């Protein structure tokens, strides 16, 4: 239960950060992204992929579970990617200020 709540909270952060990034509020986006824990997402996703390979039966339940955690992981990974993009923008902005 606890894990599930934590995951939702992470997803919410990722979505909020993406919104801020798309609006161009780079610093606000960074603020939101800072709280995201990548390690947890990896741990959640890892078993779902390594188990997947051999078993081809029992699609219905396993698949939906798998799809959910994959969705969450992809959100988190995208959030970290956008964090890198935000930092890049910030770096460029600062560079321009220095050289002007």
């Amino acid at each position, binding site marked *: 239960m606890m894990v599930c709540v934590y995951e939702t909270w992470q997803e919410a952060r990722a979505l909020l950060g993406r919104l801020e990034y798309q609006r161009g509020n780079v610093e606000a986006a960074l603020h939101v992204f800072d709280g995201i824990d*990548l390690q947890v*997402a*990896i741990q959640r*996703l*890892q078993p779902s*992929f*390594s188990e*997947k390979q051999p078993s081809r039966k029992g699609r219905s339940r396993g698949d939906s579970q798998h*799809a959910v955690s*994959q*969705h969450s*992981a*992809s959100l988190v*990974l*995208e959030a*970290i*990617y956008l*964090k*890198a*993009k*935000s*930092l*890049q923008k*910030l*770096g*460029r*902005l*600062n*560079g321009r200020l*220095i050289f002007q």
Partner: protein
Amino acid sequence: MTVGLLTLYLWMPHFLLNPALCYLADAAHECKRVLDAVEKIFHQGIPDVQVDNRLQDTVRQAVELLPELWKQAGCYHEAMSAYRRALLSQWNLDDDNCSRIQKAFAVFLMHSGVEAGPPSLAAQVDSSYVPKHNLEEAILLLMILVRKFYLGKIVWDPSVLEHLTFALSLCGQTSVLAKELEEIMPGVFHRVDRWNTLALCYSAVGQNKAALNLLRKSLHKHEQPDDLIALLLAAKICSEDSHLAAEGVGYAQRAITNAQGRNEHLKGVAIRMLGLCSGKQATTSPSDFERSRLQSEALKLLDAAISLEKNNPDLLFELGMLYAEQRNLNTALRYAKRFIDATGGSLLKGWRLLAQILSAQQRFSEAEVVIDAALDETAKWEQGPLLKLKAKLKTSQSLPMDAIETYRYLLALVQAQRKSFGPLRSVSQVSCFFFHTHIIIL
């Protein structure tokens, strides 16, 4: 204290001093975390089917972004390994994605100034070829990109060919470049541009006849008869062959009329080519009157050219040669000396010209001093022509024994050369042997 601070400042990593670089380095670390996480989750590369599109898109973007971030942060070695990682690991990249990375990596290899060292990643397959240096790796990448275009996997990007042209010219492999250019499908490249570039490639490897034939096509009146570079190259090729010199005069005259406005700076070159073609034409002219007219014409033109390009060493050499051919030895001597000054004595042909002019003035001992100086400056393998000249000087001074000694030395050199480079190669070997026996008989 101040000294201590200064040392600290000098030794600090550069991104600590500049907040912009600091952000960029952070960005690179974050981006790297994404890739590390992906590698941790998928041990054997990303499977095609199981992954949703969104995740795959993020991975592709991150793979492409990471080397860019390292470059912007000024961390070139990290950028290098990020490129390698992007291309060698299994990220399930699509063709466009992969080609963009390959092109950026090739450009980085050529222009970053960082020596990469061979890729020694575990992902490297045992039997695969390992490039020897940056330039070779860049060329291979660019060739892969050209092939991808032929297979219809990517759209044509003219800059790929420009980079490939630069890289292959840089290492003197213009015959390889010519092959690449010939393979390009019609409709990609204007045919006149292709002919002209091919001509440059062929003339660079000494295939002047092929080059001239291509230039004749591109300078035809229905193509681009006023292209200055093509005209100059055609004139240059013609100036080296007395049978083509008359044709070259025509190209050079057209070049002079076209060297205007934006191309004004090439006027000196055009005039020089006209002078060289006239000088060459003089050597085959049937009448004495015609010959001296052409020769003085050539001299006048080269003098005009040197007033436009005062310190062009090639021009100084050509003037020296032309004056020597006219037997105006004092002036020739002056130009030969100026040529040696301009090149710092680094070119063999300058020393040879100087010695030849001196010996024409019957100043044999001085000529010998020049040859000895040149021998000191020249690597062993290239001493052949100098030794031949020295032996001739000895003969002219009626010192046959010394001449024999020199020929003997030359013969030893030739034989050593033959052992290391293969069978009889040059005329100089035959003539050396001939002179040697000749003098012994005398």
